[in-house]
Structures are given as C-alpha cells and as structure tokens.
C-alpha cells in the first residue's frame, strides 16, 4: 500500500498510473498536453510500484482526458490505469486499450514507403495482431513487428 503520495493530491483532473518506468515524457508528448497553457502536469518518474517494480505516474490538473485520446498511449503504456479525479475523489477508473488504427505516432520502417518523404500525411497503421504485436502500414502494406514498434517508443 502507498502510505504517502510523492506528488500532492489534485482537486480535479486525470491521473495516469502504471506507466512503464521512464516512459512518462513519451506519454505526455503523445497526448500533446505539454503545450496547453491551462493545464498543469506533474510527473513522477521511477517511483516504487507493487505491480511494475518501478513506474511513472502522470497527474494532469484541470483536464479530464477522454478515453479515445488516452487509448493512443496504449502502445507505450499498455497497462496504464486512468483515474478521473473530481473534488479530490476518484470518480471513474479505467484502463487503456489498443486502438484499431495508430495514426501519427510511429514511423514506417520501410524506407521505400511514401510516408517517409515530404507528403502531407500522417503515418497510419492497423493492428494485425495484438500478441505478438503486428501492425500494418496503411500505405505500403508492410507489416511492422513488435520489436520495430518498441524501438521507436
């Protein structure tokens, strides 16, 4: 049991817990919360966790992140638990799930793919298999292996 909170309580907002140690900044950047002037974000890195050994925790104040946006972090933080905090109480709690398509986060490893040259499109992958993770590029139709995915995250 956690006896003390390393980071102080927030009144309203979203807590992203059980982020793999060291991946918090990547999560923040996928969620694009770092540039929002109305949002204070507190990050705890490599804190003790019963479940994961070490973990990162992200607390986003004054913003209720929505499920669809949060699902985008599932590649980096598949075991993340999300708590929606309202007036210091956890109002809602859920986990993230892998989205059907992954847009803009990964780069196609195929050098000959059109998405790797200057064109006004995001990379886009569909999930062929979850375990082991296999993604397929919407453009060149090449598969991307779990190893290739992890090397980019």
């Amino acid at each position, binding site marked *: 049991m956690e006896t003390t909170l390393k980071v102080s309580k927030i009144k309203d907002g979203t807590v992203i817990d059980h982020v793999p140690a060291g991946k918090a900044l990547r999560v923040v950047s996928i969620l694009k919360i770092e540039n929002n002037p109305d949002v204070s974000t507190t990050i705890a890195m490599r804190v003790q966790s019963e479940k994961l050994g070490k973990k990162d925790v992200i607390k986003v104040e004054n913003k209720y992140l929505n499920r669809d946006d949060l699902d985008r972090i599932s590649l980096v933080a598949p075991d993340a638990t999300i708590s929606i905090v309202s007036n210091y109480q956890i109002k809602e709690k859920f986990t993230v799930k892998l989205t059907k398509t992954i847009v803009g986060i990964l780069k196609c490893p195929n050098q000959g*793919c059109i998405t790797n040259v*200057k064109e006004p*499109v995001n990379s886009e992958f569909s999930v062929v298999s979850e375990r082991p993770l296999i993604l397929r590029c919407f453009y060149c*139709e090449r*598969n991307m292996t779990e190893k290739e995915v992890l090397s980019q995250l």
Partner: protein
Amino acid sequence: MLKNKSIVSIDDVSESDISEIFSVSDRMLNALEAGKKLEMLNGKIMATLFYEPSTRTRLSFESSMHRLGGSVISVSDVKSSSVAKGETLADTIRMAESYSDVIVIRHPLEGAARLASKFSTKPVINAGDGSGQHPTQTLLDLYTMRKYFGKIDGLRIAMVGDLRYGRTVHSLLLALSNFDVEVTLISPQILKMPEHIRERLGKNIKVTSRENLDEKMDEFDVFYVTRIQKERFTDQNEYNSVIGLYSIDADTVGKMKKNAIIMHPLPRVDEIKPEVDYLPNAAYFKQAFYGIPVRMALLSMILGA
C-alpha cells in the same frame, strides 16, 4: 461492385469482383476479336502519371481507354516536371483529378497509389508502386491462367527467378493465396520471396520453396518466370552461373507436362530462349495481350459505363 472504386492493391478486389472482371474481360475480348468499335467511355478522360518508365503497362492502359472510346491525357515525364519543382504527390493528384475521370499512376515509392487515392475524389488505379503492388498485372496474370486452364483452383504453379525484387510475383502470390493452389518458389538463395510477403499469405495456399529448377518439372501446370537482373549481383560470375540455371530453352520445355504454360511479365532477357517462343507452351505474348481486355474491363466497370 467496382464503380468509382480505386484499385490500389489486389486486396481491394474481392473474389466476386474478380469473377465479374473475368466475365467482362471475356466480353471485351470477343469485341476485340470481332473488331467491334466500342463507345462506352465516350467523353471520359483517363490521366496517366508515370513517375517511372514503363512500356507495356502504359501502352496497354492507353490503348484500352482508346478502345472504349475514351481519351487519354498524360505527362511525358512527371518526374522532371513536377518532382523537380518540389511539388508533393498530394498536390499533383489534386490537380490531376480536376482534369480527368480516372487516374492511373506508377511511382517508385510503395504506398504512393494509396496516398493518391486519399487525395483524389476520382478513382485511382495503381500501375505499380516501387516493389509494392501491381494489381492490374496480377489480374491479367490470373486471367491468363483461367483462359488456358478454365479455372485457377487446383493449379500447380512454379514461380521462377527473381522472387525478391519482382513486384509482379509479390502481388500474384498474395492473390493466389485466396485460391486453392500449390505454389513452388524456385529462386537462388539471394533472390528469395521476402518474408514480409510470405507472412501475409492466406491459409488455403500450399507454398514450398527450393533452389533447383531442374527437378520434377512435369508436376507443374504453370511456370511463371521473371527476369533476373544483372544489377542485383555484386559478383558477375555469380550472375553468370545463376542465369544459366534458371533459363528456359526447348530442352527444359521437353521436361514439362505437355500442356504446361510458361508465363512472364516481360521484358524477358536471357531467361527464356527465343526458340521457346514458337512452342505451344509459350504463353507470355498472349498474357501481355490479355492486359488489354482486362484493363478495358476494369476501366469500364470503374467508370460505370
């Protein structure tokens, strides 16, 4: 139903689309053989954007459109005009779609045709993207097999030569994996079918591979031969030894089943000797000709005449 649809990958055509394409191709073939003048695409314009050189594919697309009464606009060399000015493909497509009813594109990068279809409200046909897909070639390859044997299910097919870089064999193998066929991949070690293709094959297909062409040749109905390019070899001696092992002459044909056919996407160089051209087994020129009825069928179905 292919009306207004783009054909980028062979996966864009369903099994029922394929049988419809084949029956429309049969009708087109009859019309061609009867010398009938068709007007069904009167007033329609096809734009061809070839970022890579092509002889057969481009000629056959343009001829097909003309045969249907439509017209063709094209840029003789998109690469030097538009690419040199730094225009994105997306912008070129936005322009081309406003000038035409259908866009045919060949591009050196994989996924280029998919990107084009995203930026175009008009249907896009992929005429080859890098080492990716070439769906109309695949359709005419399948049509050729069906013409010779009446069906595709049950055929035993050998793919011979450069299976690594040749995009026609990639598309064809993927398409064949939806049929009940047996495929043997015959190539030198360094030119093997890439894993990224093999891992996408459907469950029905039986695929084996080997290096040796000269064994149990009487088991195959179809030999699909591809060109082995000199440039792929760093060691020219290795090229010379390989090219000899995979080339087909009258003696090789003698070891085949009597009604086996030899296909080739063309151009061929040394892999099929000219003496083979006169044997009934040589199907490659017929195959190239079938590109016309098949592309006519596609254009007429897409443009909904």
